[in-house]
């Protein structure tokens, strides 16, 4: 009999319920699952800290968008994942998120390097079950969207740094160039320069933002 301590963090109880339903239905015969759940950052932090002192979690599931902690220290699943990595070095970290933009994916892989990275829209119950088992024995597991992103960026020769990625991301969300400085701590002229560089990088000849975004999307940067 194998005991697995699991933490599931999501702000929608119905999603946690879904996870539980799937995992309970598909677990191996010798596995016993002990699942803790949390709906916000504060509860999660308490649980992670408690686990670090007592029985550590074997697997932690984190959603990205979560109600922030009251003291404002933790604002998303990313922060929680980093905390868990620090306090529970042996536990497997799984990110489950609705976000499927390349920028987010890139950042999460870079910052957290999770054992499992699943985009919710990719997910079926079968895939979740498979992922769970693979994470336990041979991590990492990336769902199809993440996989295709990783493949694309590995094959691409274009190097885009984080700030430029963020610029591309913000532009793709319809933020105007002059408002970019409200999101990135750079001057407008510096941002303009970076945009010009990006356009050179992606060989944009007509100078239009739209073409840049299209090209970035094609190359998997968005």
């Amino acid at each position, binding site marked *: 009999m194998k005991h697995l301590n699991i933490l599931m963090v999501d702000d929608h109880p119905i*999603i946690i319920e*879904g996870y539980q339903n*799937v995992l309970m239905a598909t677990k191996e015969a010798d596995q016993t699952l002990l699942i803790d759940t949390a709906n916000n950052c504060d509860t999660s932090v308490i649980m992670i800290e408690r686990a670090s002192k007592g029985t550590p979690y074997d697997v932690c599931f984190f959603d990205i968008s979560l109600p922030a902690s009251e003291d404002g220290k933790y604002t998303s699943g990313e922060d929680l994942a980093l905390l868990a990595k620090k306090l529970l070095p042996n536990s497997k970290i799984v990110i489950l998120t*609705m976000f499927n933009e390349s920028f987010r994916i890139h950042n999460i892989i870079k910052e957290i390097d999770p054992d499992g990275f699943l985009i*919710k829209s990719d997910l*079926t*119950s079968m895939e*979740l079950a498979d992922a769970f088992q693979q994470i336990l024995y041979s991590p990492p597991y990336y769902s199809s969207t993440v996989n295709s992103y990783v493949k694309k960026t590995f094959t691409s020769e274009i190097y885009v740094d984080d700030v430029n990625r963020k610029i591309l991301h913000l532009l793709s969300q319809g933020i105007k160039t002059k408002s970019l400085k409200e999101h990135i701590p750079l001057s407008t002229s510096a941002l303009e320069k970076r945009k010009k560089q990006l356009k050179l990088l992606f060989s944009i000849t007509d100078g239009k933002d739209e073409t840049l975004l299209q090209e970035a999307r094609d190359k998997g940067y968005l």
Partner: protein
Amino acid sequence: MKSILLGLLVIVVKLSYSQSANENVLLDSVSSLINNSEKNDYTDLEQFNFLITANSLAEELKSDSILLITEKKIRGYYFNNQDITGYIKSNQKIKLLAEKLNDSSSLAHAYNALGYAYFLNDIKDSSYYYYSKAVKAFDHINADIDLSYSLGSLSKLQLDGKDYYGAGESAVKALRLLNDIEETNDIQDQKWILYNTLASISEALDDDEQSLEYYSEAYEVAQRMKNDFNNSIYTLNNIAFVKRKQEKYNEAIKIFNNILDNNNLYEEDPSFYALILENLAFTNFLNSSSQKNEIIKMFERSYTIADSINDDITKMGTAISMAKFYIGIDENQNALNKVKIAYNLAKNLESNEIRLESLLLLSKLNEDKESEKYLNEYIKVADSLLKVERGVRNKHARIELQTDQLEAENKQISKENVYLLILSIGLLLTAILIYVVISQRAKNRKLKLIQVQQKANEDIYNLMLGQQDKVDEARAKEKTRVSEELHDGVLGRLFGTRLSLDSINFKDGKEAMMTRAKYIGELKTIEEDIRKISHELNTDFVLGSGYMDIVTELIENQGQAYGIQNEFNYTDDISWDLVTNKTKINIYRIIQESMQNIYKHANANTIKISISLEKDVICLDIMDDGDGFDTAKNRKGIGLKNMTSRVEDINGSIDFTSQSGNGTTVNVKIPYTNQLT
């Protein structure tokens, strides 16, 4: 024959003139007439007639310059024929023409000629007048030689009038002018004349040494001359005369004898020969060196020569000298005879000096009553002479004074003219400057006003743009909110439900059915949520609020600042997006201006403002409960004027209703339908 030809020519000329009236033909005729007048084929009279015809043609031509030329030719004719009256007349005409044409050279020559003519006519004062004019005129055009001649003539006239000082000055000036001039025979002659004049002046002043010096200068000049017209012997005579006066009789006699030794003198100039003889005789008598008979012989010879050539002057001189001689040797009867001859000649010749001398001798030679008679006559003549002399000198002085005064006056007038010109130019410039400054200032003021208004309008426009930005921002925020709601709320729950439903596939039986029903219910809730979001999306919460928000803010801020209660009602029927910015800006400004006026002048407690739409007309009403004003009187205030012009600018109308104490209502009507233009 010649006169017929002349007549023909005149007829031809007249004909050609009347037929063609061509000026060129006339000119040709004039020049051919002048040419003819210079040909020696014609008699003087014929030549003169040519000139007269030419002159009348020139008059018809009305060309003063041609008239001047013909007139000069006529003058030349008069001069050659010694018709002095004609000469004077012609010169007067030339003078007028030259004045008209501003021909200073011709004018100066005309003056000079007139001076000469009057001198010949013995009208000394007129002569003096014209010579002094000529001097001024020649001096003005720097004609040195002509000036020198005029000055010489003037000097002689002055000497005649016993104005020795003036005469000396004129002669010296005339001489100086000739210093740098090349010495032709004529110039030398003029110099000789001038030296003689100077010597005469000195003589008259009893400065014999000076006189001798001038004479020796004159003699030198005469010696240099190629053709001296006997100038040197005349000078020698003069020198001898002075020597005699100085009682150097021997020297005088030597000189006289030298002159008489000159070959051909008697043939060339018998009058002068007679004069020298007389002089020699008289000097011999004074010297008492010669025999009485010899002296008488010389006198007689001189007298006979003078008589034979009708030279009354020499005859007179000889007679008076003989009379003195006879008195000297006590032959009173002979003396009386000669004196009477001299007296009569002097009276005829108007030679006053000799007349006086002879009168004195007569009174000496006669006795008692007869003597007294001559003495009285002497005194009378001497007196009248003195008077004449004084008169002449006075006249000269007067003429000089007059010309000087005239000149000074002219100078003064031209100076005044210059001042007047400068003054008027200055005034004109000042006027122009003032006009420019004033107009520029007015322009500047206008421009500044326009600038200020533009700035205000811009501010409002920016305000409106800012409001638009705010609206856009709010819209964007709303979009994000909806997106997040969809993403986190609906999508999450949908995912959870899907996953759970999926997991139920692993189970079956009744429990599974129950669970499925539960999730299907969950789906229904999600459906409801989506409908709600969709509904929220459908209603644009910011629609149409932009402009009215700005106005509301203005009214609130202004009211707060002024401490006046305010009330603002507006209709949502007006779609402000369709209203032009110009109209919106003007409505804003009118409200602003009104509130300012109310604060400044009305002492109001509350303001009611309303914007409504009535029959496609935007009605803006601003009411206050202040003092009010007399609408008839205060129409012209800048605030009201501004508001009126603003309303007119957007094709609206404005109405002020007010009664003292009852507050004021401003009613603005702006068409709504033409806003799309």
